[in-house]
């Protein structure tokens, strides 16, 4: 191996280690008894460990219901957000139209609104529409909070594709939509994934809106359900929280691994076909 490669790989390992350490600690803790979670002599291996925390997670009431709710809310949010935002991003970066700047500024300002200040009003709106305790209600809430971000980022990606490329394809005889699909879409795909993953993580982990909007036990999402391990003044069952968090992270990883392969493959195809 060339020295350059070795240095790069070592740097890569270092970055991976720093990124992973807290994750590793979470997983480690999920195998510990409460009393061993914090100790004057920390141990870096999960043995001797216990599976008790995982048993508590899977046996606890409403775990599967909460998982189902989380899956529905997240997939609804991500898919709708990507479609809606992509359309808007194309309009913004490929067209000049009246109201374009107004839209851009509005979308940016929406990003600035502190969500904590809107909790009660959002609840009021959804309550008026009878959407409290429904996945539609929560998904709508998440949608408005991920949309602005998704539009902004996707706009960057669409603009990153030089318009001349599309023009060149059109000169070659492709229709405008054809040129767009053949040239722009594949190049924007990594952006769709990056923003998609972002929206997914936001929706999957969100707590405070889920807490106030999904009030019935059967409508809780996973982050809210996870708080059941926190007993306030009576302390928190950290083993349970960490086991729950670990379980919660799995779908995200799986999704990422699937998408990651798909997209790189799609990218390659796009590159070859040009």
């Amino acid at each position: 191996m060339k020295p350059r490669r070795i240095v790069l790989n070592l740097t890569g390992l270092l970055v991976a280690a720093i990124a992973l350490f807290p994750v590793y600690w979470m997983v480690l803790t999920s195998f510990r008894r409460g009393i061993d979670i914090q100790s004057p002599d920390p141990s870096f291996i999960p043995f001797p460990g216990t599976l008790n925390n995982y048993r508590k997670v899977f046996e606890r009431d409403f775990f599967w219901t909460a998982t189902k709710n989380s899956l529905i809310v997240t997939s609804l949010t991500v898919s709708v957000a990507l479609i809606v935002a992509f359309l808007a991003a194309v309009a913004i970066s490929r067209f000049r139209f009246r109201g374009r700047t107004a839209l851009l500024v509005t979308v940016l300002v929406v990003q600035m609104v502190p969500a904590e200040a809107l909790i009660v009003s959002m609840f009021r709106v959804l309550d008026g529409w009878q959407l409290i305790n429904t996945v539609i209600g929560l998904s709508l809430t998440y949608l408005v909070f991920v949309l602005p971000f998704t539009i902004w980022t996707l706009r960057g990606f669409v603009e990153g594709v030089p318009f001349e490329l599309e023009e060149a394809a059109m000169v070659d005889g492709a229709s405008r939509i054809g040129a767009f699909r053949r040239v722009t879409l594949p190049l924007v795909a990594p952006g769709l994934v990056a923003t998609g993953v972002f929206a997914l993580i936001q929706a999957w982990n969100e707590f405070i809106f889920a807490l106030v909007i999904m009030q019935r036990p059967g409508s809780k999402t996973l982050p809210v359900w996870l708080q059941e391990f926190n007993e306030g003044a009576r302390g928190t069952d950290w083993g349970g929280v960490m086991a729950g968090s670990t379980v919660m992270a799995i779908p995200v990883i799986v999704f990422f691994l699937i998408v990651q392969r798909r997209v790189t493959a799609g990218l390659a195809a796009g590159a070859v076909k040009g």
Partner: protein
Amino acid sequence: MTVTTTTEPGAPPRVPVVPVPATAERRPPRPRRRRSVLPYVLIAPTVIVLTVVLGYPVVRLIVQSGQEYGMAQVFGTPARWIGFDNFRHLFEDRYFWTVLRRTTVFCFVNVVLTMSLGVLVALLLNSLGSKMRLLVSTSLILAWAMPALTATVVWQWIFDSEYGLANWVFDRQGESWLADPMSFFGVATIIVVWMGIPFIAFTVYAGLSQVPADLLEAASLDGAGAVARFRYIVVPMLKPILMILTALSTLWDFRVFTQIYVLQQAGGISRDTNLLGVYTYQLSIGQSDYGAGAAAALLMIVLMCILTLGYLRSMFKQDHI
């Protein structure tokens, strides 16, 4: 498996070669048919969703900022109109200015760190082999996927004064990391940057894949070094993405909440470590003074507009409006 990197020698041209003047400002999008309805159709879903769902809460936020609005008003007592009193109280409160200054500094430091480290990691991802890249990107996604609350708690354990790993490593039993505001913000910065890097790195990396490989190759043949290639080809091409990311990071770090809140509960002195996000929360939920909370929120929005002014201006310039 993963295929192709922009640096792979002999990779087939990813996109048709186009003459993009390397240092030139990107040209604004050219107008398509002037009176087309298509763009309006495309933005319609966005406009409808934002207006319908967010319209009322935002209007209420603005109205509340001019009212005496507390818990009683939530339960139906008519709110009293007090004009700009909520704002005046904030402006007259010296503590608010302290918090504001603190927030701005914290935000600036964190954005600079997150952005520069994030871009470096993206460049690293781009030059790694496929296996190492999968390892690093999976690590990043794992870090990113950790619920914010859980991640903050784990970091807080690491810096715990009784049983923290940091104290164990440095053999300083009982050293308190959170009680002193400076080291408190040091710990907070580590957490915020650690949580912020994956998103920046992935997005920039995705952007890097849009940079035509042959352009870099051509520049390389012309004798441009790695730094020059980055400076004159990559940065201009990624400029829209980098600017958006900087603007977004500024907005997020400016109203950072969870990390500060958890660390305060774990030992930070609230008064010395409040940032605007937590302070707004204390006003609105903690003290049930929704009027003051709304005023603080609106002020935050104005401040964020000012912070991102450079970005907004360049956007307007680009649009020739």
